[in-house]
């Protein structure tokens, strides 16, 4: 919402400066985006008189002018190319050193075709006032030479740009802003008493509201004819008002409607009566009806939209924009002036569907003052008759342009309760009164009636806000909140603790945390098991961000690819964040996932004088995943590693981590070659993902005591075994068989060598294990060791078909 200081002063008696006003506006919730004084840029420009203008000796189109700029030192010589530069006119002079507003250039004394020029006579375009550049500015004869042009033209008028929140339509008119400022103590409102108008003749056009069971779509419609007007450019003061806030003057009739839109938050519409056929009907549009609107575009309407129609059809989109066919031109002599009320929601929906952002829509969808519907028409009538002459008919009003004032029961204690402000009753009632609220009742419990221009106020809290706005939040004393008694208690849930731990654990393994988009492209979502239609956005911001991610891996892979493309071909990234398997709250899971690419293993990446890092593989991902599970308190010796994983992994270089047959905790592996191809990546990429919700919760215990530590006194004995098995036999099977040979005695089994080669035979491999025997009662004898060794061999052979390698 833009307005100038002089416009505000039409409604507010105030001595306050622009700065004070701006500060107050922001303080009361009308945030000032900017205050600009157009006069500042025009300060160097003075009114001058052209004393003489002679042909330039060396140029046909130039004249050498002697210009009186009001200096005692006498006239200044200026070379000027404007066709209207002639002796006797008053013009606007710029001295050397001035900055020309529309170019930003600094004017210098120059020599033009051999004649010195000590300044410049300027056009409106050069001053940024308009596009006018056919000649220099000519001022009336009585313009005082030597004085400021900006002051003469009354351009010294600060322009405020205020951001009005959507709850305050009353401040979309200058008069409403004046009311708020007066209540804030910045002056007094200037009332504009409006005597009721008298029609000279009955209105020849009637209005019918034909909205069936939805009369609320147009609660009221007031109309009157003014005949015999002389339309044309509006007077300078009105044009100046409109131009000052960036509107283009059109003609007097239209300018009056635009002026009242901004002056009083009262949008109006004018029809050229000669182009309206018969009476007007307010009705819903018929599907497929079209209208060429005043913005020059044709709109196709549907049955939800409300229009004003005559015998020819739709002439105006109610409350949004009029039609070209019945628009007022300079030739208009008879004008129908409309002031109506519309349903805010319907206006908003229609405006959105049609894509029309008009000043009328903006106001009607926020809410105009219903009580001002008829007075607004009276005011428009008077302005039109004043500016254009003519004779007004009686007013016809369809519907009810009156609203019962709503009332709120308001205990004064609410101010203290919600705002913490101790204010005397008369201060509260005074503030409400100045804002137009009616205050009734005595003592602690008031009845407050709400002005019709305040659709935002409906309850006690709203009234407290009005008081706080005017008193200022600074007046509220700061009060410490009660802190928890004693030492603060833990507040994080298990899930929250896991997210924090997962992040630190993965970062501690050298992975770098990324935060990637929750939405990814459809093909990537599909590649990683997502892409269900219900998880696709209806209005994505780009083709890369259409579907909710089913996994963190596609985002991390894309990040890896971008980094590789920047020349960082080795890297390790992780993310802990939400993934979506459906649209219900329960379908959102928290995953922790990571990718390593190039040579970025946990031991470092790239070349090094000791040893260059190898390419990452499935075991890097497995190590990350198990380390993460350990950090999250999962006993990694209890989980099962099942070969294979989801389709995006290499089938022979991936594993699924499970607890029991059903509970999948996560996956690790190298990306499938076709996954890499679809991601436009060159491998290898090792990746893992864990679903944090799948992890078992720790068992609740009565105390924090750890189980006692049982350290055996006896020395452990280690024995090595090498088995030859088929290539497909899992090492875990050998380890499990060996462990099972004597659960009491065998404390651990380590695979320390895996070997394939001609010596072993085609399709076979050698797996060497070290078994640790830990006696607890007595030192083992050779015979004891022999016995358990034999059992280890026998059990392993039985379980895996192995042969012992001798």
């Amino acid at each position, binding site marked *: 919402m833009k307005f100038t200081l002089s416009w505000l002063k039409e409604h507010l008696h105030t001595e306050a400066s622009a700065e004070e006003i701006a500060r107050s506006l922001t303080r009361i919730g009308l945030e000032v985006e900017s205050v600009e004084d157009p006069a500042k840029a025009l300060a160097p420009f003075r009114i001058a008189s052209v004393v003489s203008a002679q042909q330039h000796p060396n140029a046909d189109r130039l004249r050498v002018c002697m210009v009186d700029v009001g200096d005692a030192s006498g006239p200044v010589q200026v070379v000027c190319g404007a066709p209207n530069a002639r002796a006797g006119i008053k013009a606007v002079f710029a001295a050397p050193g001035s900055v020309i507003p529309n170019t930003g250039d600094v004017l210098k004394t120059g020599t033009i075709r051999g004649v010195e020029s000590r300044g410049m006579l300027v056009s409106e375009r050069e001053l940024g006032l308009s596009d006018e550049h056919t000649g220099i500015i000519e001022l009336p004869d009585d313009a005082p030479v030597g004085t400021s042009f900006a002051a003469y033209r009354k351009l010294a008028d600060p322009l405020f740009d205020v951001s009005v929140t959507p709850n305050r339509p009353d401040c979309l008119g200058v008069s409403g802003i004046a009311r708020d400022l007066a209540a804030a103590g910045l002056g007094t409102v200037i009332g504009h008493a409006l005597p009721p108008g008298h029609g000279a003749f009955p209105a020849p056009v009637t209005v019918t509201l034909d909205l069936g069971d939805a009369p609320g779509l147009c609660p009221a419609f007031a109309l009157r004819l003014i005949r015999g007007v002389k339309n044309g450019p509006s007077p300078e003061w009105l044009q100046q008002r409109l131009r000052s806030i960036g509107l283009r003057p059109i003609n007097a009739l239209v300018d009056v409607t635009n002026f009242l839109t901004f002056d009083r938050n009262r949008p109006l519409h004018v029809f050229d009566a000669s182009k309206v056929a018969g009476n007007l009907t307010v009705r819903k549009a018929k599907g497929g009806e079209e209208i060429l609107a005043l913005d020059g575009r044709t709109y196709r309407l549907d049955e939800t939209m409300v229009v004003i129609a005559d015998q020819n059809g739709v002439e105006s989109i109610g409350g949004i924009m009029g039609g070209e066919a019945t628009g007022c031109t300079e030739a208009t002599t008879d004008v129908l002036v409309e002031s109506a009320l519309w349903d805010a929601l319907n206006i908003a*929906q229609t405006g959105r569907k049609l894509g029309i952002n008009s000043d009328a829509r903006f106001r009607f969808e926020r809410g105009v003052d219903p009580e001002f519907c008829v007075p607004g028409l009276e005011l428009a009538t008077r302005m039109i008759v004043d500016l254009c002459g003519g004779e007004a008919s009686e007013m016809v009003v369809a519907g009810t342009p009156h609203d019962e004032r709503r009332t709120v029961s308001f205990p004064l204690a609410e101010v203290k309760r919600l705002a913490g402000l101790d204010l005397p009753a008369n201060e509260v009632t005074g503030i409400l009164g100045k804002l137009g609220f009616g205050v009734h009742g005595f003592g602690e419990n008031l009845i407050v009636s709400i002005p019709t221009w305040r659709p935002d106020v409906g309850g006690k809290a709203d009234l407290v806000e009005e008081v706080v706005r005017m008193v200022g939040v600074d007046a509220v004393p700061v009060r410490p909140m009660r802190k928890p008694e004693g030492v603060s208690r833990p507040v994080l*849930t298990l899930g929250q603790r896991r997210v924090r731990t997962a992040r630190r654990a993965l970062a501690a393994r050298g992975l770098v945390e990324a935060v990637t*988009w929750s939405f990814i492209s459809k093909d990537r979502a599909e590649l990683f098991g997502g892409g269900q239609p219900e998880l696709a956005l209806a209005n994505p911001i780009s083709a890369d961000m259409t579907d909710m991610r089913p996994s963190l891996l596609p985002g991390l892979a894309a990040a890896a690819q971008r980094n590789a493309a920047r020349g960082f071909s080795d890297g390790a990234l992780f993310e802990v964040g939400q993934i979506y398997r459906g649209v219900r709250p329960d379908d959102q899971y928290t995953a922790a996932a990571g990718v390593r690419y190039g040579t970025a293993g946990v031991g470092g990446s790239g070349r090094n004088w000791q040893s260059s890092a190898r390419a990452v593989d499935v075991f890097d991902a497995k190590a990350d995943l198990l380390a993460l599970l350990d950090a999250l308190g999962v006993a990694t010796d209890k989980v099962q590693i099942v070969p294979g994983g989801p389709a995006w992994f290499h089938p022979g270089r991936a594993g699924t981590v499970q607890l029991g047959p059903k509970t999948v905790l996560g996956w690790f592996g190298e990306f499938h070659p076709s996954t890499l191809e679809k991601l436009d990546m060159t491998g290898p990429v090792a990746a893992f993902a864990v679903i944090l919700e799948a992890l078992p919760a720790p068992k609740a215990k009565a105390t924090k005591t750890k189980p006692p530590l049982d350290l055996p006194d006896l020395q452990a004995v280690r024995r090595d075994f090498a088995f030859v098995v088929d290539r497909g036999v899992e090492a875990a099977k050998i380890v499990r068989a060996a462990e099972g040979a004597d659960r009491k005695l065998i404390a651990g089994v380590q695979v320390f060598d895996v070997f394939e080669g001609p010596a072993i035979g085609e399709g076979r491999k050698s797996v060497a294990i070290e078994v640790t025997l830990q006696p607890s009662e007595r030192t083992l004898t050779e015979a004891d060791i022999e016995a358990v060794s034999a059992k280890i061999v026998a059990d392993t052979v039985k379980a895996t078909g192995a042969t012992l390698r001798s």
Partner: protein
Amino acid sequence: MSDIDTIERTILAAVGSAGDEAALETVRVSALGKKGSVSELLKTLGTMTPAERQTAGPAINGLKDRVNEALAARKAILRDEALTKRLAAEAVDVTLPVRRAPLETGRIHPVSQVIDEITAICSDLGFAIAEGPDIETDFYNFTALNFPVGHPAREMHDTFFFRPNAEGERLLLRTHTSPVQIRTMEKQKPPIRVVIPGRTYRQDSDQTHTPMFHQLEGLVIEEDTNIGHLKWVLQEFCKAFFEVDRVEMRFRPSFFPFTEPSMEVDIRCRRVGNEVRFGEGDDWLEILGCGMVHPNVLRHGGIDPDRYQGFAWGMGIDRIAMLKYGMPDLRAFFDADVRWLRHYGFRPLDLPTLAGGLSG
């Protein structure tokens, strides 16, 4: 006697010229071994008369002692020499680089770090952390938060929608963390003190807006809490978060459908290069929105607005991270450029605590 002298001279010369421990051992054996020259002399003592022994005994034993001493001294020298030689041979170029440890290369994203900082502060004030889903219903995101259907305030949110489901319901991505206010009220009776950090989404993109961003919501519902407490919490939070001794805040009345009265808060600051210094200067930086929870919102959460009251605030986590740590561009937060993450990220063990200071 001259025999002894000769033998001693010979042995000591041999000791002195022994070049290593093996040579020295040969010298020892030739002198003190079974057939050694000194041993042979000792054997002669048995054949001597007591009188002869009286003088020859000490002389020969003295010789033995001196030879032993010389051997020991030489041995020590030889060992030192050998060690010195070994050490010289074992020397390496310690300027050669070592690989960087995982703890040196791993990084925590600034958003996570800032959420941990917020958690440290808010838990001390008795706030729990609440969470809610990203995919929301119109009811939780708007209606329950007192956004009238069709109100322009909804349009200001640039909402991402999903296609209507079979029941005609159109789900959306939450545009703010405020729906979790309602979800919290449904689950928990007052008193309530929660903060809600999380991802939020709006259809917007430029240097300071991204289609996804992070918000921090705060919600307090008690029987006697008012704007004075709200001001206190925000001041304490900002002082603690920005790690400054004082902040100056300006509360401007504003409008949010879910609070009444509503306020926007600016913080006094001075910009120096890419730094923002708080508590000084003449700039005001908008930092958060807040207000007393609207009675309709309390009602939607099943709470009696005449008995309980509360306040809420919301601020951008990414934004306060940028203000504190000086990142110029929000879009870079979600680009996963490792150069950016290394520069603006935090070390794995930089865990923010109140005891140790949030940023150490």
